[in-house]
């Protein structure tokens, strides 16, 4: 835990409500990045960030200085994202054949403004999103935390509550699966 974070928590516990806002500003972007990488939807990601910070507010009063806020926050975000994904899948199973509205909208916008090139780019993007979504939750979480958040293996192991070896294995399998999926689809050369 960094000294600044420690001080802000102490201030909050001492009754300074503004300290929470500072903690929010400190971690909101990282939290959003992780949530977005999982949900691929701006509104869902913002909802998850909001929910995670509400939970943080509730526990911050009895926070122990040895635990880092962002480690806890990531864990909550990953769990909330998994829950939301499950709910969405259940809903989609009922209404089969649905296109995710966000994906449909983005594709339409692309057609309007950028012609075929941007449509192709958009399709690649959608395909990569789907490929990442198809990974098992633990591999997906490890990949997001490592790749998007740049966390160390040790940090990811704490967040996911498993050994560093397990995280390395999850990352290895995640990248290999993605590599195979994208290669099959001929999406390996996709420099924007």
């Amino acid at each position, binding site marked *: 835990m960094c000294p600044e974070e420690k001080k802000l928590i102490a201030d909050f516990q001492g009754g300074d*409500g503004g300290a929470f806002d500072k903690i929010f500003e400190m971690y909101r972007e990282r939290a959003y*990045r992780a949530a977005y990488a999982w949900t691929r939807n701006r509104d869902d990601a913002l909802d998850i960030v909001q929910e995670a910070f509400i939970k943080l507010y509730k526990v911050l009063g009895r926070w122990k200085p040895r635990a880092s806020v962002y480690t806890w926050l990531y864990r909550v975000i990953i769990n909330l994202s998994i829950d939301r994904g499950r709910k969405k899948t259940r809903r989609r199973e009922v209404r089969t054949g649905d296109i995710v509205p966000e994906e449909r909208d983005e594709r339409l916008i692309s057609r309007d403004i950028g012609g075929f090139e941007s449509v192709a780019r958009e399709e*690649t993007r959608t395909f*990569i999103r789907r490929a990442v979504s198809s990974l098992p939750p633990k591999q997906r979480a490890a990949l997001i935390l490592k790749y*998007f958040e740049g966390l160390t293996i040790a940090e990811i192991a704490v967040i996911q509550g498993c050994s560093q070896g397990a995280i390395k294995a999850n990352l290895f399998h995640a990248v290999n699966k*993605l*590599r195979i999926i994208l290669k099959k689809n001929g999406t390996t050369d996709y420099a924007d």
Partner: protein
Amino acid sequence: MRCSKFRKAVLPLAMETGDERELALRLERTDVKLRSHLDSCEECRSYLRSCRETLAGLSVLEADQPGERKWSEVRDAIHEAVRQKAPVYGVAWPSLSRVSWARAGAIAAVALIISAVSFVYFRPGPLDESLPRALRVAGAPGGEEADLAFLDELEVTDREYDELISEIDELMREIDTAYAQLDIGTGEVSLDKGRFENIPT
């Protein structure tokens, strides 16, 4: 070095390095075996390239951050939510005072007494073979076959129960008065504990 071993070792390099130059620098500093294997094995070079391309492709998933206005909305929504849910911890609400705890304790005690009394008077007893069949089957009085003596007995029980309830009501009023006095700082709470002891449990 075997290819499978190399592939596990090379993945962190693929993830942690940006461009080709950075990768070359990292490889120079890394294990000699790893480097020599990479030099000699075309398949593994292709694997490393493919991993790097895959990871580069993930950049399309990176999100544009919401603007400051959106963040303010989220922050306000968080404040609003915690204000509504009234958590036990936090700075928005004072911690529960001793008086509140005492009040909660008194209410819990009264609720416990009511539950105990209800349990004593309404628990189903062992089936009495002498009762008419309709009563045994239905488990409650009713219908033409009901035993009148049993109904009388129930009425007495009912009256006793009503008396107990009014006694509890009276106790509740006393508690409220006592706390009202405490709230305005006129004195200490004095409850007649004997009143509780009179209630059968």
